[in-house]
C-alpha cells in the first residue's frame, strides 16, 4: 500500500522558505526542520485512522525514525521503550503517543544538552575542530568566532588545514568578516606546528579563545587520524589542559556512518563536543539520537545556514519539539 509511496511520492511544497529572519528561533528551526518532508508529529494522525494505537502504529513510527536516519538499532530501542508504555495502556490516543515519543526522545537527548562555556583563566581556550571532509568545520569556526565575539571574548583563528586547496584563504575570509587575526603558514606545513605557533601567539596577546581548523579526514585513514593526535599531544606539552574542546562537526545529511565517525574520532582523541551542521535542509540529523544513546558526547551547537549567525546552542526540547510538532500550515493534507 502507500506506506512505501509516502516518501517517494512526496508532493512538492517548498513555498515556505520566506520566513522572517526575526521569527523566534523555535519557529525558525521548526520551519527549517520541516521545510520539506514533514517528520513525525504532523503525520501521526495520518496513520492512526480513528485514533487507535496498536502495533501497526508503532511499526509505522519505526519506519519514520529510520527515515530520519536514527538507524535500525537506536530505533528498535526507542520503539521498545514506547512499547512498554503501550502495554501499560498509557498510550491511548495520538496525543498520548506523541507525548510518549517526546519523552523517550528527550530521555536520550537531554543528558547531552551541555552548552560550551569557554574558560580562559588558564590562557587561551583552544577549540580543535575535527571531522570528515566537507562537514562544515571551517564555516562553523566562522560562526563560533561571531558567537564568542558577541559574548565579549577575544578570538584568534589557526589555519590548521594546510592540505586542501584554498583552505587557508577560506579561513582567512572568515577572519576578515569577523575582524579577528588568523595565524597561517604556507601550504603543506605541519598542522601541529601551525596550531602550536598560533597558541603561542594567542597566549602572548592574551586572547581568550583560539579556534583551530583542521583538514577534513575520513575516520578510517589511520595516518590522518594520527596527525590529529599529534596536534593534541603537541598542545598538551605546552598546556596540559589544551585543547580544552575537541569539537566533532557532523553533517545532518549523513547516514549511519556518522555513528562510526563519532566512535572513531572519540577513540582517537576523546571528543568533548559535537556540532551538527546543515539542519536547515530536510535531513533531520536523526543519527544524533543514536550517537547520544551510544556515546553520550555533549552536543554544543546546531548549524542552520551558511551565514555567520546561522548557528544556535543545542537545546534538546527545542530540537525534539521541532521534530514532533513542526506542522506548518500549508503542509496540512499535502499528501494522501
Amino acid at each position, binding site marked *: 500500500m502507500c*506506506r*512505501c*509511496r*509516502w*516518501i*517517494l511520492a*512526496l508532493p512538492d511544497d*517548498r*513555498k515556505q*522558505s520566506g520566513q522572517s529572519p526575526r521569527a523566534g528561533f523555535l519557529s525558525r528551526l521548526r520551519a527549517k526542520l520541516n*521545510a*520539506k*518532508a514533514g517528520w513525525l508529529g504532523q503525520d501521526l494522525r495520518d496513520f492512526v485512522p480513528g485514533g487507535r494505537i496498536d502495533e501497526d502504529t508503532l511499526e509505522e513510527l519505526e*519506519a519514520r525514525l*529510520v*527515515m*530520519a*536516519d536514527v*538507524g*535500525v*538499532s537506536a530505533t528498535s530501542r526507542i520503539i521498545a521503550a514506547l512499547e512498554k508504555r503501550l502495554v501499560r495502556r498509557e498510550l491511548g490516543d495520538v496525543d498520548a503517543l506523541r507525548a510518549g515519543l517526546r519523552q523517550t526522545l528527550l530521555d536520550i537527548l537531554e543528558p547531552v544538552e551541555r552548552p560550551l562555556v569557554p574558560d580562559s583563566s588558564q590562557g587561551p581556550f583552544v577549540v580543535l575542530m575535527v571531522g*570528515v*571532509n*566537507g*562537514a*562544515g568545520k571551517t564555516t562553523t569556526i566562522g560562526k563560533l568566532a561571531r558567537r564568542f565575539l558577541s559574548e565579549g571574548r577575544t578570538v584568534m583563528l589557526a589555519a590548521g588545514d594546510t*592540505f*586542501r*586547496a*584554498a*583552505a587557508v*584563504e*577560506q579561513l*582567512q*575570509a*572568515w577572519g576578515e*568578516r569577523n575582524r579577528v587575526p588568523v595565524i597561517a603558514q604556507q601550504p603543506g606545513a605541519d598542522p601541529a606546528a601551525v596550531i602550536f605557533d598560533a597558541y603561542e601567539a594567542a597566549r602572548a596577546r592574551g586572547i581568550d579563545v583560539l579556534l583551530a581548523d583542521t583538514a*577534513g579526514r*575520513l*575516520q*578510517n*585513514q589511520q595516518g590522518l587520524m594520527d596527525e590529529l593526535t599529534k596536534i593534541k599531544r603537541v598542545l598538551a606539552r605546552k598546556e596540559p589542559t589544551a585543547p580544552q574542546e575537541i569539537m566533532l562537526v557532523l*553533517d545532518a*545529511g*549523513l*547516514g*549511519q*556512518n*556518522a*555513528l*562510526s565517525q563519532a566512535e572513531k574520532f572519540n577513540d582517537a582523541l576523546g571528543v568533548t563536543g559535537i556540532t551538527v551542521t*546543515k539542519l*536547515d*535542509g*530536510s*535531513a*533531520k540529523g*536523526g*543519527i544524533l539520537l543514536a550517537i547520544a544513546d551510544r556515546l553520550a558526547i555533549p552536543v554544543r551547537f546546531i548549524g542552520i545556514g*551558511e551565514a555567520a549567525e546561522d548557528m544556535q546552542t543545542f537545546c534538546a526540547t527545542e530540537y525534539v519539539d521541532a521534530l514532533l510538532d513542526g506542522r506548518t500550515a500549508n503542509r496540512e493534507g499535502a499528501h494522501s
Partner: protein
Amino acid sequence: MFENLSGRLKEALGNITGKGRLTEANIKDTLRQVRLALLEADVALPVAKAFIERVRERAVGEQVAASLTPGQALIKIIHGELIALLGGDAVELDLKARPPVVILLAGLQGAGKTTTAAKLARRLQEKNKKRVMLVSVDVHRPAAILQLEKLAAEIGALHCASSADEEPVRIVERALAEVRQSHADVLIVDTAGRLHVDEDMMDEVVAVHGAARPHETLFVVDAMAGQDAVNAAREFDERLPLTGMVLTKADGDAKGGVALSVREVTGKPIRYLGVGEKTEALEVFHPDRMASRILGMGDVLSLVEEIEGKVDRDKADKLARKLRKGRSFDLADLRDQLEQMLSMGGLAAMLDKLPLPGGVNASALKSDAGEKQIRRQIGIINSMTPGERRHPKTINGSRKRRIAEGAGLPVQDVNRLLKQHLTMEKMMKKMSRGGMKKLLRGLPPGGVPPGLG
C-alpha cells in the same frame, strides 16, 4: 554493527532448508536480514522495501541450480537485482557532441563538486586527450573560486577567472565565449553547494544550467549520505534535469547505500566514484562491486562466484569428457583437483566463507583441511611415476615406501591418500559431468573425505 549483520545474514542463509526450490517460507528470514542490511547501509526505506519486493517476486518458485544451495541461489538473485538496479555496465561521459562539450556539476554543500571538477578535468586530459577549461560560478562560499583556480593550475587545465561579485549566469556566458576562443574541447562548470529546499538557490542553478546548456549535468553526492539524499536527488533531477551522478568519498568505510537510492529515484547512471582527495582519485563506477559493498557480504558472494567461475573450466571439462568416455579418475586428476583447491585458498579459506550448519566445529575442520595438508598430498602424487599415477593399482608395498621417502612422509600418509583416491574414484563414476563443484557437494555432510585428514 555491520559485521554483525553480515554474520546474521550468513546464519540466515545457512538456515534455508528444503532443497531444490525457493519458497516464501524459506527465504523470509534472509530477506529480513537483507532489508536490515540495506537500511544500515543507508538505502532509503521506500527504496529498500521496493527492492525486497522485487527480489521476493523473482525468487519464489525459482528452481535452484544443482551447483548451489538455496541460500546461495537467493544471494545470487539479490546480487543480480542489485547490479541491475545500480545500472548494469559502467556508462562513460558523452563527449561526442560538437565542442565545446559542457559539463555542469551540482549538489549539496560539501559533497565534493569542486574536487570532482578537477578530477574529471584531469581524467579527460589524460585519458581522452581533451583540452579542458574549468570555471566556478560559486559566488557564495568564501574562497570557492580560488579553490578551483588552484586545482586547475595543479593539473594544468585552463581556467576561466570569475569573481564573487559577478552574476553566475554572466560568468557562464563569459566562459562559453572564452572556451570557444581558446579552442578547448570541454568546459566544466562548478556550482555552489545548495540545499534542494532552498528555492532561490535552486532557481539560480536552473538559470546557470539554462545558460550553460550542458551535455552532461552530474549530481555529486557523498557516499556517506543518509535517507534524505533521495529527496535532494529527485529535486535536482526534476529541476535540471540530471544526466548522471558521481559518488564521492567512497574511500571511507560507509556502505554507500545512497548509490542505490539516488539511482532508483532518478534512473540516471552513476558515472564515477571519488576515492580520495587527490585529483587522480577518480574511478569508473562498477555496479557489481558496489552491490557487494552495500550488502556487506562480499565473502558469501565471492564463494558463490569462485565455485561457479574460478574453477578451471578447461581442466574440469577435460576430466568430464574423460569420465564420460568410461575412463577412470586417476591420481593425476586428483592432483588437478587438489591444485584447484589450493588456488581457492584451500578448504580452510572456503570453510570460512561457507555458512556452516550449527553444531559443526569449524576450527576442527580447518586444522584437518588446511593448505599444508593439500600441499603434502600433492607432494605424494608428485613423487610417483606417470605410470603409477595412471594405474594406482600397481602401487605395491615397495613402491609405497619409495614414494613416501620421496615426499618425506610416513607410509601411512601414502596409504591414506590412496584410500581417499579410491573413494573419490567411486564418487566420480556416479557423476557424468562436472568438476570441482560437484565434487564438493559430494562431500559427506559436515566432513571431508577420509584421507584429507
